[in-house]
C-alpha cells in the first residue's frame, strides 16, 4: 500500500485509480483507508495550502479542514467518476471559504488590495521557497487563488468562477494579470 501511495504525492492525476479505491473504501467506514487517503494527498494539499496562505500554521489548519470536509462528503462521491477532479473542487471550495472566514476574523484585511493583505506580502517566506513561490507570495490573494485553482488544481475557468463567486471574464482577467505579475517578478529575479 505504501508504495503506491508514494506515487500519489506527485502530479495531479497520478494514482487516480488508487485514490478512487481508497475513497470508496473510506466511504464505507474504513478508517484505515481514509488515513491512507490522507497520506496519499497530504503533501499536495498542504503544499497547495501553503502556496495559497503563505503561513505554515494556517496552511496546516486549512489542509486539515480540507481532509475533514472530504471525510464528511465521501458518501457523496460517485465511484463511477474520477476522484481527483471531485476532490480538488472540494478542496478549492474549502480554501475559498477558509480565507473568507479568516479575513472576517481579522478585520481590516482586504482581499482586493494585496498590499494590505498579510497573506500576499508575507516577507517570511516558507523554508525551501522557490523563485516561483517567492513571486507568488507577492501576489494579491485575489489573484493567487484563481491562479492556483486553474493551473495547479486543474479546475476549469467556469469552475474557478463558480468557486470564487466571479465571472469567467473576471477570472480570465485575473489570471492574465497574475501571470504578468509573476513573469515580471521572475524576470527581475533571474536577471
Amino acid at each position, binding site marked *: 500500500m505504501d508504495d503506491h501511495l508514494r506515487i500519489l504525492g506527485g*502530479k495531479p492525476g497520478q494514482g487516480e485509480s488508487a485514490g478512487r479505491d481508497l475513497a470508496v473504501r473510506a466511504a464505507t467506514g474504513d478508517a484505515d483507508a481514509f488515513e491512507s487517503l*490522507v497520506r496519499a494527498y497530504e503533501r499536495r494539499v498542504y503544499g497547495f495550502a501553503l502556496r495559497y496562505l503563505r503561513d505554515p500554521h494556517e496552511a496546516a489548519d486549512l489542509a486539515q479542514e480540507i481532509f475533514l470536509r472530504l471525510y464528511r462528503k465521501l458518501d457523496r462521491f460517485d465511484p463511477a467518476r474520477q476522484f481527483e477532479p471531485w476532490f480538488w473542487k472540494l478542496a478549492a471550495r474549502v480554501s475559498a471559504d477558509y480565507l473568507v472566514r479568516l479575513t472576517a476574523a481579522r478585520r481590516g484585511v482586504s482581499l482586493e488590495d494585496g498590499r494590505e493583505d498579510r497573506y500576499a506580502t508575507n516577507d517570511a517566506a516558507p523554508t525551501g521557497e522557490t523563485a516561483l513561490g517567492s513571486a507568488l507570495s507577492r501576489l494579491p490573494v485575489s489573484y493567487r487563488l484563481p491562479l492556483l485553482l486553474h493551473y*495547479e488544481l486543474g479546475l476549469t475557468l467556469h469552475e474557478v468562477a463558480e468557486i470564487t463567486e466571479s465571472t469567467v471574464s473576471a477570472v480570465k482577467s485575473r489570471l492574465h494579470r497574475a501571470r*504578468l505579475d509573476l513573469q515580471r517578478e521572475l524576470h527581475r529575479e533571474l536577471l
Partner: protein
Amino acid sequence: MECDLVQSLLPALLDGELDGPAGRLVQAHLAACPTCRRAHAIAGAIPRLLANPANPDPPASFASDVARKARRIHRRSSGRNAILAVAVAVLAGGAGAAWAAVWTERVPPTGSSPVAVAPDSPPVWPTTAPPGRAAPAMPPASSRSTPQPPAAPAPVPASTPTPGDLTPAPAPTCGSSKACPALSPIAVVPVSPAPTGSVAPVPITPWPPSPSDTPTPSPSDTPAPTPEPFPTDSPSVGPDPITP
C-alpha cells in the same frame, strides 16, 4: 515597440489570443530583443511551474491527527444516530403503549359488568393527586362523593353540547356477573343541558361497578356520563385532567 508593452502582451500571445498585426509586431520584436525573448520563455514556463509545484512536507503526524479527528467525527455521528434511533423507538413505543392503554380501557375484559364509559374517556380514576394530597387509592364505589347511576340524567358543565348535539355513545363494558353484551361501535345520544350558573360535580362511573349499576346499552335515552376526577373538598368544574 517598447519592451514593456511587448512583455505585457506575452500572456495573451501564449494563450493564442494575439492574432493579426499586433501578434506579428510582437513576434518581430521578440526576434530582435533578447530581453523580451527571455521574458517570453519565463512567461511560457509559469503555467508548467504552477502545475508541477515543489510540495513541502506537512507537519509530522499530520495524517494521523486528521485520521484521529475523522474517527472522532464518526463516533459522534454514530452516537447521534444511535440516540436518534433510541428516541424514535421510545416515541414509537410510547405511542403504541398509549394507544394500547386507550384501547384496553375501551374494551374491558370479558366477564365484568357493563359500565357506561364514554368512548373517548381515558381511565376513570386519576392517578395523580391534587396538590397537598397523596395519590388516591381506589376507594369502594359506595364511598365516592356523588356516584351517579348511569341511567339518570347527569348534569354536565356548561361547555358541553346542548341537546340535539351529537355525542358518541358510551361504550358498554362488562361486569363480572353478567354476560358481556356485544359492543356497539358508536351511537348517538342526546346530552342533557347543563344547569346554568351552577357548579356541578362531574359525574363518574363507579369502578368497580356496584351491583346496582346497570349497563346502558341503549343509546337513545342515556346521557353520556363523564368521568370524574378525584373528589375534592369543594366541587369543581375544572377540566378533566386526563381527558384529551
